[in-house]
């Protein structure tokens, strides 16, 4: 792997990204990092508009080899084209209070830098994928919600759309309790074109109402990508001492011995996650659990690779 790729990948670590104030810059770094690392775009395909040449890599489809270049230079290059699609990507980002939780300054690390919250992780994902889509001339829309649909940007592929999306993601407050099911239903009503809906949330809400909303979206023939963002502390529950857990979103509090409760808690979390996964599978939606403590390169890279594989 080249030195440049290494340089980019270091920016994909959440703890590094947390230091980068600008979401726009973050998203660019993430996408550039992704592109530089893999040398292939999962959205690239056969089209009429030539985009670029790139060196052949093991595993590439030989149907895209530029035989003329090979004959002239004795080097193997692939021809890449801009894919022409009528894809409409809508990023739906949960901005409720529970998304404000981040343990990067907490039990998982001794780093005393700025906290990296689930919301930071979610917005980074949304901005990155929006950037990728716009780069491919696809339309991108945005919906941000907490207990209300706070902001909605219609899908567009204009060059200014991405900047607007980034600006909205940056400005959203995160202090309210979510009512995801109702809001997704509202959103389903708003989407008139068939869209690829990316929902990024922790899904700490009533799963039944969410399921209803998902089914409604599928009924409207939208394609769903569900990303559940969880903090490392929520996944591992690493607490030792007696702790007072103060619930976000006005959910009460609990004084307990965490070591004794750990197993039961993880079991409850798994139950919820499994149910969400089962729910997505039943409506043929992509489901991914995103650990906000893990590098975005791995997260997005894996997700896009799997998705590309399914598209074939």
């Amino acid at each position, binding site marked *: 792997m080249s030195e440049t790729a290494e340089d980019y990948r270091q920016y994909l670590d959440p703890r590094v990204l947390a230091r980068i104030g600008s979401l726009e810059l973050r998203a660019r770094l993430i996408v550039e990092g992704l592109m530089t690392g893999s040398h292939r775009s999962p959205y690239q395909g056969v089209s009429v508009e030539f985009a670029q040449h790139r060196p052949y890599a093991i595993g590439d489809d030989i149907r895209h080899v530029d035989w003329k270049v090979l004959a002239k230079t004795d080097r193997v290059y692939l021809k890449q084209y801009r894919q022409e699609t009528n894809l409409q990507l809508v990023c739906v980002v949960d901005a409720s*209070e*529970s*998304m*404000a*939780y981040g343990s990067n300054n*907490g039990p998982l690390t001794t780093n005393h830098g700025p906290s990296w919250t*689930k919301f930071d992780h979610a917005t980074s994902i949304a901005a990155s994928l929006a950037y990728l889509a716009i780069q491919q001339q696809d339309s991108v829309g945005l919906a941000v919600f907490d207990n209300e649909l706070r902001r909605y940007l219609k899908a567009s592929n204009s060059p200014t759309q991405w900047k607007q999306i980034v600006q909205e993601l940056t400005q959203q407050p995160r202090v309210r309790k979510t009512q995801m099911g109702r809001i997704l239903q509202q959103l389903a009503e708003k989407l008139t074109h068939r869209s690829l809906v990316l929902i990024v949330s*922790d899904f*700490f809400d009533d799963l039944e109402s969410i399921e209803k909303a998902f089914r409604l979206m599928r009924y409207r023939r939208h394609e769903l990508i569900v990303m559940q963002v969880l*903090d490392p502390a*929520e996944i591992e529950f690493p*607490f*030792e*001492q*007696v*702790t*007072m*857990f*103060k*619930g*976000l*979103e006005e*959910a*009460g*509090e*609990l*004084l*307990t*011995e965490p*070591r*004794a*409760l*750990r*197993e*039961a*808690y993880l*079991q*409850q*979390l798994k139950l*919820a996650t499994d149910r969400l996964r089962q729910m997505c599978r039943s409506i043929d939606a992509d489901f991914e659990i995103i650990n906000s403590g893990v590098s975005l390169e791995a997260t997005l890279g894996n997700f896009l690779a799997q998705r590309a594989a399914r598209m074939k």
Partner: protein
Amino acid sequence: MLQPLAMFLSPGFLVAGLVLAAAPIIIHLLNRRRYRIVPWAAIEYLLAAIRKNRRRLQFESWLLLAVRCAALLLLGLALSRPMGCTNTSLAALGQRAGLDVFIIDNSYSMGYQHPRGVANTHLDQAKLIARTLISRMESGSEGVAIVIAASPARAIIAQPTYDLTGATSTIDAISQTAAATDLAGALRLAEKIASQNAALPNKHLYIFSDSTRSALENTQAADIQTLSRQLGNTYSITYFTLGLRSQRNIAISGLHSNEPLVTTKFAGQFLTTVLGFNTQGSAKLQWKLDGRLLASTQSGSSAEGIKAVLDNVAITTGGPHVLSVAADGDDPLPIDNVAYRVISAAGQMKVLLVEGDRGSTPMSGSASFLNVALAPGLAAGKSAESYVQPTLISDLQLPGEVLSDYRAIVLANVPTIDAREADALKQYVSTGGTLLLFMGEQVNAENYNQMLLSRGLLPGALQRRMNAPADSPFHFDFHPNGALDPLLAFLANQPRSGLETAEISSYWQVSLPTNSKAERVLDYTARDKGSGGKAAREGNSSLSADPAIILNTLGEGRVLFFSTTADAQWTTLPAKPVYVPLMHELLRGSIVADDLWMNLNVGDSLSLPNRIKLTASPTLQSPSGNLIPMQLTGNPATYQSAPLQTPGIYHLNTGHDVYPIAVNPPEEEADVRTESPAALRAIFGDAKIDFESDQPPPVTAATDQGKDFGWIAMLVVLGLFGAECLMAMKFGHYKR
């Protein structure tokens, strides 16, 4: 039944355990008060987990808390060493704990030969029983201490050991001694061990002795009785009697010369005592001098002792000689069948005569008279006929003399003694020398009182000079047919010796202190009442009779005080026939035999007198040829050995000479007759003692009472700690 607190060896640990048991509860409560606050998004899942597992979590929490409290409480209980559980099946779980003290008599009477299987002597059998008892003990819970009772008693394991193998080895290593029994000392040591280990329960005292009269009916009897009663309250005592009812023994003891001074000029007479206990008939004695057989005699024997005498033993050379007497015959205790005596025969006894009459001519001074009297031929320039070898000097020459070269020093009419001379004389007498003081015109009484009296060289202060009227001289209060001092015994029944008719014109009156231990050899007749000499010799100083000759002891030596002159100046005694023999007998009788230090009993240390010349570091060789170290001790420093434990002839090499040293077994141990059971109970003050025979007692079920449950409790504690670890891990209280 044990008292509540006595049920625990260390009750303090139990209290500590009770306090510690509260620690987990306190920590739990403190933790509930001191917690961290964490904002938490997934609170719904936590609440759901709590709702679903509340009862289980509470149960686990209480169970863990209870286990932790119980573990700490039981730890305190285990360390407090709980005792008890009388006659319950639970007692089988406990270990027998306690202190077992063994007193093993290894005095020489325990060497009595009486084969019992592999054991040949009483001591062998005692060791066998002790080993058997130790083999029945429980390793790690019963401490063993061992005391040996041969005089002086000593604890060979004073601090109880739990190494039973080591204790058995220590018993195996106990050796037969030739010493007497010190049972009182051994009991005292057992009492000390008990007091130092007061916390240990189940104290058991095992005493192994042959119960001989010599061991029990002696000066320690009262102590034995008192100590036994005291120990009966502390220990449960078992007494093993190894001795037989019909033990017999022949012993030779008390071998000595009939004369205080053995010389090469006169044949000597030697005596010994033949002791026989439970024996019939006579003993055949073999007398040997320096290993050479002198004579064989027959002698009867009895428990009280029968004197055996050997006359006309001529010792022709001066110096130390070894005389021995051995009894032949079959005796189960042969160690005391031979007695040794080192005799220092005087070949030429050097006497220093110090003349106080300045410018005197032969036969004109006191010392000159004595010179002639003690060595008549020598004074006349002829060959020596006497064993006495006098040296006549002026008092001015006294400071230049080495006093230790002489067996006796005579100060005759010496005017004054300075402090340095007085110190030298005191040192000389204290270390075994003999000083004879004769008065005269020159004597300065004030100087004598100041220099000699304060150093113990005068029996009393010189009060005043007594002068008799010319027509009424003083006389010695001497009655040849009456009671005589041993020094004058040679004049018994000799009415014309001249001593009673000798006239004394003048003498120095001596004031004897009321508590004086000085021996009044001869007095003057009382002048006022004419009381008899016998009354005067009874030592009542209130009588008017003044002492004429006084014998006093100072240290190891003697001082003979003669209150008048040795010449004819104040008395007509020199003209009497008795004069020469009297001077000889006074000298011979006051001389201290210089062989006492060479005759010791087992257990005594050899202390080398300072008068013995050394040209090298002294070495002492035992009868078996081993070298025994001699060390400088005391002030003034003298060479001394460790207590000598083996009877026989030792050899001391001073570089200049080799001296034989005789070591005999203590004669008081010879009486091997054993006490009856009733007498034994009385001797031990009717203390609670289980008397056993000479065989190991049968194995009996160990008493349940006083068993130690500390180890059991400790095992439970370990189990609880293990359970706590497993539960805490299972309940998710430890990091995985």
